[in-house]
C-alpha cells in the first residue's frame, strides 16, 4: 500500500501523546474538581477559542496535527480561526459568519446523525 508508506509515523506518535495529554487534563478536572462534564466541555471549547484567537493553538496544531484538532479545544480554536479569517476579509459581517462556517460540517453531522440514530435505535431500559 502506497498510502501506508506515506503516513508520517513520527507525527502520528506526537498526535497520540498530545491528544492523550489533553484528555488527561479533562480527566483531572473530572476527578479532582466538582465540575460536571458539560461544564468541562464548555471550558475546553472556550479555552480553545481563546488560545486560537491569540494564535497560540496553531503551534500545537502544527506540532501534533489531529492530536490538537480532534479534542474539543481544537473545535474552539477552529471557530476562532474561521472568525478571524472572515473578519479580515469581510469586516464585522465576517465576525458573525466565519466561526460557524468553519465548524458547520461537524455541527450538521452531529445533529443529522443524532436525528437518524434516534429514528433507528431503541432507548435502553434503565435498571431500577
Amino acid at each position: 500500500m502506497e498510502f501506508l508508506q506515506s503516513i508520517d509515523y513520527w507525527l502520528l506518535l506526537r498526535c497520540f501523546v498530545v491528544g492523550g495529554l489533553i484528555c488527561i487534563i479533562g480527566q483531572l478536572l473530572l476527578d479532582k474538581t466538582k465540575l460536571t462534564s458539560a461544564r468541562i466541555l464548555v471550558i475546553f471549547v472556550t479555552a480553545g477559542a481563546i488560545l486560537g484567537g491569540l494564535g497560540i493553538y496553531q503551534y500545537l496544531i502544527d506540532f501534533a496535527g489531529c492530536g490538537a484538532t480532534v479534542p474539543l479545544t481544537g473545535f474552539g480554536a477552529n471557530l476562532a480561526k474561521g472568525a478571524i479569517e472572515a473578519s479580515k476579509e469581510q469586516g464585522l459581517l465576517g465576525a458573525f459568519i466565519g466561526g460557524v462556517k468553519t465548524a458547520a460540517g461537524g455541527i450538521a453531522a452531529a445533529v443529522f446523525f443524532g436525528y437518524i440514530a434516534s429514528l433507528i435505535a431503541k432507548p435502553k431500559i434503565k435498571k431500577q
Partner: protein
Amino acid sequence: MNPIETPQTYQEYVNQKSPNSPILKNCFNAFWVGGLICSIGQIIFEFCQYQGLDQTSASTVVSIVLIGITAILTGINIFNRIGKFAGAGTFVPITGFANSIVSPAIEYKSEGYVMGVGAKMFTVAGPVLVFGISASVLIGMITCLLI
C-alpha cells in the same frame, strides 16, 4: 478499640481503610483511549490529503467521520461502555460532543420528536455551542477593531 490520638495516626487509619484512589488508572485509560481516537483521526486526515483534499476540508471530513462512528456506537450501546472505561478519553475529543447529542436524542425519543429528540439533543451540546460561537463572534469583532 483504642482511641485515635494524633492527626497523623488518624491519617494512617483513613489511608488503611479507604480504597486506593483510581485517579492514576483513570488518567492512564483517558490517555491511551484519547490518544487512540486522535490517532484514528490523524490517519483519516492523512488519507484525505493522500486523496488530494486540502487541509480545511480534510479536517472537516475527520470530524464528520468520527461523529458518524460515534453515532453508530452510541446507537448500539457500545460507546457508553467505552465511556465508562475511558472517562475523559472519550468525552474530550469530538466524539464526546457527538455522543452528547446522539445519546439524549435516543433516550428522549419517547417524549416525541419535537420536544423530545429535537429539544433534548442540545442539553450538553447547546452550552458548548453558545459559548464556542459567542467566543468566536467576540474574537472576530476584536479582529475588526485591530485591523
